[in-house]
């Protein structure tokens, strides 16, 4: 299996792939630096454009955007106390006070190195753990895949957001959206209401752009008052040398990266959780915890390495099981399917160049941050914050329109995207988490297909779902997640 990893190295280093890594990382840093735009939106917008590309190039862009945006999010977090992405919230705690203390340059450099180190460690974890897990999953049948899909869906529904009922309702809504169209087993039309458009089902990319990209743009439009940031905010001095940073932060980077990798593997937990856990751990271990929050560079190092270490590791369950750990992982699955590749253990044997090439791309883009995220480049990237939101809103909406239109060349898709956007806006404002909806669209049909296959094989013996040892293990994990969450709620209720 590891031979394939090294055989894929030349694929990841071919000209087209290298260009996509550079472009993706640059775009990612820019997107991350713009508050309101997020990597999910950027990747969702970019995917339709890659239909005609080689999958290696498409995935190179995804890797670049993902790693780039995690660092990009730190730029406004440090300079303006506005997290560019949700994962950069913990970076504001010490990053902004450092800017106020005249150490903005050092904070940006620390963030850049920390993001790169976190991304590199995460990519190494992906390269070593994913092939091993893929070997294990070769023993999985439809029953196991059904339970894995249910586990992924339920754990995201109960872990994301503050209310289990809302999380579950979001996930179930996603499953229903995913079921619309012709049933692949019986050929029956479901929830199509005799519409030709609906019989093909909803395209994942259109649902995703609608649910995830439109609500933040609408919110931006509401807040827009044609103001733009003062140029004085972006003046940063270059300070801190690389060797000094390594000596000062290597322990924090190691600890936070391990936290980020562990969090990334868990479904539902995102970069923001990894960053907050890493920050708290760094503060707990510090001999001077009072300095955290007042401009301690260790706080920036912990938050940034933690959130970036979540990136590649979130791909482990996604590539091996076809169960995305987060929304970007769901998009990677979407990208693979767009290019006719089926995620799961077979991917490692059928298309090793693509899957292992992607792992190398995750590693290279993390390294590219050091090159592209340097002080001069960071100063340039910070200028993107001058773009007035009154113009950012229509240009982003045009990008969405062209991205969605190019999927099938169908104008109806634009109206469907807008409808999902309004639904997403409403759900968001009513405190329903959106991630379970998207994962429901993806995992619902997968769970159903495997359930029905399992029933066909066992001749409608429902007991067969519970008898296989691996299935029992997954059920035990599922119950553990549910009981842990129920225990937390009970404890919170007692405290109140």
């Amino acid at each position, binding site marked *: 299996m590891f031979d394939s990893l090294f055989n894929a190295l030349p694929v990841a280093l071919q000209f087209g792939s290298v260009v996509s890594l550079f472009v993706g990382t640059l775009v990612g840093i820019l997107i991350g630096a713009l508050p309101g735009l997020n990597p999910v939106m950027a990747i969702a917008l970019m995917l339709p454009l890659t239909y005609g590309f080689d999958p290696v190039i498409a995935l190179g862009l995804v890797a670049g955007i993902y790693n780039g945006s995690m660092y990009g999010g730190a730029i406004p977090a440090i300079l303006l106390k506005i997290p560019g992405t949700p994962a950069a919230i913990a970076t504001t705690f010490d990053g902004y006070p450092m800017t106020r203390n005249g150490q903005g340059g050092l904070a940006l450099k620390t963030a850049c190195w920390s993001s790169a180190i976190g991304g590199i460690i995460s990519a190494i974890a992906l390269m070593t753990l994913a092939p091993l897990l893929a070997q294990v999953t070769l023993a999985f049948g439809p029953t196991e895949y059904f339970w894995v899909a249910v586990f992924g869906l339920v754990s995201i529904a109960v872990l994301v957001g503050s209310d289990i009922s809302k999380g579950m309702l979001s996930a*179930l809504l996603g*499953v229903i959206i995913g079921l619309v169209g012709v049933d692949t087993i019986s050929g029956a039309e479901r929830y199509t209401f005799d519409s030709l458009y609906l019989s093909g089902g909803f395209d994942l990319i259109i649902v995703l752009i609608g649910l995830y990209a439109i609500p933040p743009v609408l919110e931006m439009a509401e807040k*827009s008052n044609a103001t733009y940031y003062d140029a004085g905010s972006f003046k940063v001095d270059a300070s801190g040398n690389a060797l000094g940073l390594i000596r000062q932060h290597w322990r924090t980077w190691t600890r936070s990266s391990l936290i980020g990798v562990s969090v990334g593997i868990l479904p539902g937990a995102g970069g923001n959780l990894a960053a907050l856990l890493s920050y708290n751990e760094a503060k707990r271990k510090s001999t001077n915890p009072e300095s955290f929050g007042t401009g301690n560079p260790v706080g920036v190092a912990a938050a940034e390495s933690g959130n970036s270490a979540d990136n590649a590791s979130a791909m482990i369950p996604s590539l091996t099981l076809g169960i995305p750990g987060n929304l970007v992982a769901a998009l990677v699955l979407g990208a693979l399917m767009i290019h006719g590749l089926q995620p799961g253990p077979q991917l490692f044997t059928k298309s090793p160049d693509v899957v292992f090439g992607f792992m190398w791309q995750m590693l290279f883009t993390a390294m590219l941050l050091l090159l592209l995220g340097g002080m001069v480049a960071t100063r340039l990237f910070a200028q993107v914050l001058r773009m007035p939101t*009154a113009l950012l809103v*229509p240009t982003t909406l*045009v990008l969405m*329109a062209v991205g969605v239109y*190019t999927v099938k060349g169908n*104008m109806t898709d634009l109206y469907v995207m807008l409808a999902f956007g309004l639904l997403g806006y409403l759900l968001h404002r*009513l405190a329903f988490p959106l991630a379970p909806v998207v994962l429901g669209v993806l995992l619902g049909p997968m769970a159903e297909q495997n359930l029905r296959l399992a029933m066909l094989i066992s001749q409608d013996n429902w007991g067969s779902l519970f008898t296989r040892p691996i299935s029992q293990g997954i059920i035990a994990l599922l119950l553990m997640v549910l009981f842990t969450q129920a225990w937390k709620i009970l404890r919170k209720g007692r405290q109140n």
Partner: protein
Amino acid sequence: MNFRDIISGIAFLIFGCTVVWVGSGFDAGAAYVPMGVGILMCLFSLSLIVKGVVQTQQNGGLSSAAALIDHPGRFMATVACCLIYYLAMPTVGFYSTSTLFIILLALVLGERRPIVVLGITVGFIILLYGLFAMVLKRPLPVEFFLVS
């Protein structure tokens, strides 16, 4: 959030019941999962409604939720501009409609510097043209002045 939870719970309950009702007409194999999902949706909606009612009683009928839409005017204007943009695109053409859409929405959202609006719009449209027409060669709705 309590009243909103009750109302959204009722909406999901109605939706769940509809899913079950429509799903009951499917073939046996194709009906299991939709009906199961619909029933689960009804159960979780009921839980949300009950929780909302209990919280409302505890708060004495008061709700401290923020407005559902912060600036209804800007929100509606953006959505309306999008609809007009989509409607006009097939007849007017992609690049022309997009140019007008960006300028119009920027003005609606309060941007009043003509050089900034025109500069960014023209630059952005040239970038899109370069990417879609010259590099990717993707067919987009044809401009009205090019239709023969």
